[in-house]
C-alpha cells in the first residue's frame, strides 16, 4: 500500500476522521468540566432547587 499513488488521499481522510473524533471528545470533556465547575460554585454558594429543599 505504501507505493500507492493515492496514499496521501487515504492518509488525509483518516487524519480528518481522527481530528473530527478528537474534536468531539474534547468538546464533551471541556463542556462537562465547565458545567460541573459552575454547578459546584452555585451549590457552594447555597443555591438549591425547590425540589431539593432549602432555597438559597
Amino acid at each position, binding site marked *: 500500500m505504501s507505493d500507492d499513488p493515492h496514499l496521501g488521499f487515504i492518509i488525509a481522510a483518516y487524519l480528518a476522521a481522527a481530528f473530527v473524533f478528537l474534536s468531539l471528545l474534547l*468538546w464533551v470533556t471541556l463542556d*462537562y468540566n465547565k458545567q460541573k465547575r459552575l454547578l459546584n460554585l452555585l451549590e457552594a454558594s447555597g*443555591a438549591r432547587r425547590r425540589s431539593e429543599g432549602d432555597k438559597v
Partner: protein
Amino acid sequence: MNFTLANPARFLAFIRIAIPWLAVFGSIVTSIGFYLAFAFAPADYQQGETVRIMYIHVPSAWLSTACYGIMALSSIGTLVWRHPLADVSAKAIAPIGAAFTFLCLLTGSLWGKPMWGTWWVWDARLTSVLVLFLIYCGILALWNAYEDPARAGRSAAVMTLVGAINLPIVKFSVDWWNTLHQPASVFRMGGPTIDRSMLWPLLVVAIGITLLMVALHFAAMRNEILRRRVRTLGIIAANYEMKRGV
C-alpha cells in the same frame, strides 16, 4: 415499554454507567474493524488502495443521516409530549450529526479527487448532503438564538421536522437522478452488491463508530442537563440576591 429512564436524574445515573462501557466497547469494535479493513480486505480491482477511504466515508455518511433521524424523533417528542429529555437529546445530537456530515463531505472529496478527477461536482447526492450539513448548521444557530431553552427547543424541533424532507432525497438521490456518485451498494433491494471481503470490515467499523456516536450523544446529553441545572440555579440565586437588595 419502560419509561423509568425518562426522568433526568435516573437518566444521569444510567448514562454514568453506560458511557464508559459504550466508549470502551466502541473503541475495541472500531479498532477490529479497521484492522480487518487494512489487513484482510483486498484492494479494489479498479480503485486500488483508494477504496480504503470507504471504511471511514460510508459509516460517516450513514451516521450523518442516522443522527438526523434521532434528532427528528426527539423533535416529535418535544412537540407532541413536551418531554424535557426529548429536546435535550435533539440539542445534544445536532453538533455530532453536523460533524459526521462534515466528515462525510470531506472524505468524499478526498476519495473523489483521485477517482473522479474532481474534488466536487454538483450532482444530486453531493448537493443533498451539503444541504443536510447546512440544515444542521441552521439548527445549531437556532439553538443559540434563544435565551430560553424550551422556546429554542420548540423552534429547532419545527425546523428539524421541516428539514427531515431532505433525508429521503439524500437516500434516493442516486436512484431518482443521474449522478456521478455510485448507487447504493449495501442497503438496497436485492441485497448488497459489495463483496463480502469488503462488506464485513465495513459493517464492523460502522457498528464500532455507531457505539462511539451513542457514547458521545449520552455525554453531550449529560452536559446539557447540567447546563440547564446551572441555568435554573443561576436564576434562583439572582432572584434571591434581588430580593435581598430590596
